[in-house]
């Protein structure tokens, strides 16, 4: 009896893997993945998500999707790495794209690739040195921390205002009001790095 239950559990999980591979919603919008054009072999599937755990010893990665569903996969010395020198370059909270196959219910990574950041139209990037200069000279500057409030509380750029993305996005167009008072200001948004 128990065996049957377990089998059902595994096949459900496998079915979910197939489901995941189809249309994955990225954990963060505004991020896209390079080398999308590469055609993978027929049995290969693709998943994109954010790393929630990585164990170098067990060569195992746990990924999380936007809907908080999660996905376990293993990698090996044969796994192709893109945008990274070694598997130790992949960190928790990084967005990655994975090609994998499923063997005996286990997901084996064929390639691991770091996500690259694509900015929306009308938005430009600012680097550390220029930001420092702007902070010193631009009286019109408003720095906005887009991370959750608890992370802001633990440590943020001096003078930064906390307006979490979750709050902006949840309010729909009413979110505009949160930014309204900075209409004539130069806005700089930041978060916990390119995740």
């Amino acid at each position, binding site marked *: 009896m128990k065996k049957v239950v377990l089998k059902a559990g595994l096949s459900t999980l496998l079915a979910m893997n197939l489901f995941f591979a189809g249309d994955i919603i990225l954990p963060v919008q*505004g991020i896209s993945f390079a080398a999308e054009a590469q055609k993978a072999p027929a049995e290969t599937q693709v998943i994109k998500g954010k790393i929630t*755990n990585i164990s170098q010893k067990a060569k*195992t990665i746990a990924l999380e999707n936007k809907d908080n569903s999660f996905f376990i996969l293993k990698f090996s010395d044969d796994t192709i790495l893109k945008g990274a020198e070694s598997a130790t370059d992949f960190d928790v909270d990084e967005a990655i794209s994975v090609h994998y196959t499923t063997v005996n219910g286990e997901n084996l990574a064929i390639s691991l690739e770091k996500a690259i950041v694509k900015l929306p139209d009308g938005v430009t990037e600012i680097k550390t040195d220029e930001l420092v200069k702007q902070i010193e000279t631009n009286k019109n500057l408003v720095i906005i921390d887009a991370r959750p409030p608890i992370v802001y509380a633990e440590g943020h750029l001096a003078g930064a205002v906390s307006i979490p993305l979750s709050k902006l996005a949840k309010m729909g167009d009413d979110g505009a009001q949160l930014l309204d008072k900075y209409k004539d200001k130069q806005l700089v*948004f930041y978060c916990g790095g390119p995740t």
Partner: protein
Amino acid sequence: MSPKSAGLAVKWGHKNPRVYVDGIPAWKKSGRHVLPSIEHIEKGNIVLIDLRDVKKVESGYIPRAYTVPMADLEDAEDAFPKSLGAPIYLYSDNDADTKAATDMIKEWGYKKVTGVYGALASWEAAGKSLQKGPALIATDDNPINWQKKLGPGEISIGDFTKSLKSDLIYVVDARTPGEYATGHFPGSVSIPLEEMKTRLNEIPKDKFIVVHCKTGGRGEIGYRILKEEGYAVKFLNAECECAQTGEYEIW
């Protein structure tokens, strides 16, 4: 998340919002500081340490700060919390001391150490008052007390220790067989994380499962695997060392 925020700003009519894509990690890497919120210093579940001399501290310090004068820091390691994940915030009236102390405490293995530069001035600027009187000096006999708040799926060290003696609880050691062989918790069963998905039939469904490893990393992944499979499961998010005699230490 910041590119999306900036995208919304464009949609709502803001001109050329910019994104500091490299964010906090790059900011810290460039040697610059971050500031905690005053509320976090006042009420957060943190360890706050004043590095000034006792005499200076007693003329006014941020309430609940432990005093560890810079000159005594090197010998005070044993007075620090057992958990290397404890969030430690340091301040002084001397930035060089704050920097040196941050480096030393990180060297001891603490992962979340933050120097709060200009803390006393920020505290007063926020309208908060300094506490005068006897300092709360951290020593081996009066160690710094810090308790972790448990996250989802985590079991406390105390409950974990108790669970080792219970028949209702099945402790899974997710480390490698090699690590298991050098010493493990009494009664724990070796199921390495990489084999967990293929060895589910060995894990009883009618018991409460606790997964552990050496640091909590593999334990958490194991917890997620088993939870997905419908197990009642928790994991130990702590570091541990087991001897072949069955003795162990968890911190």
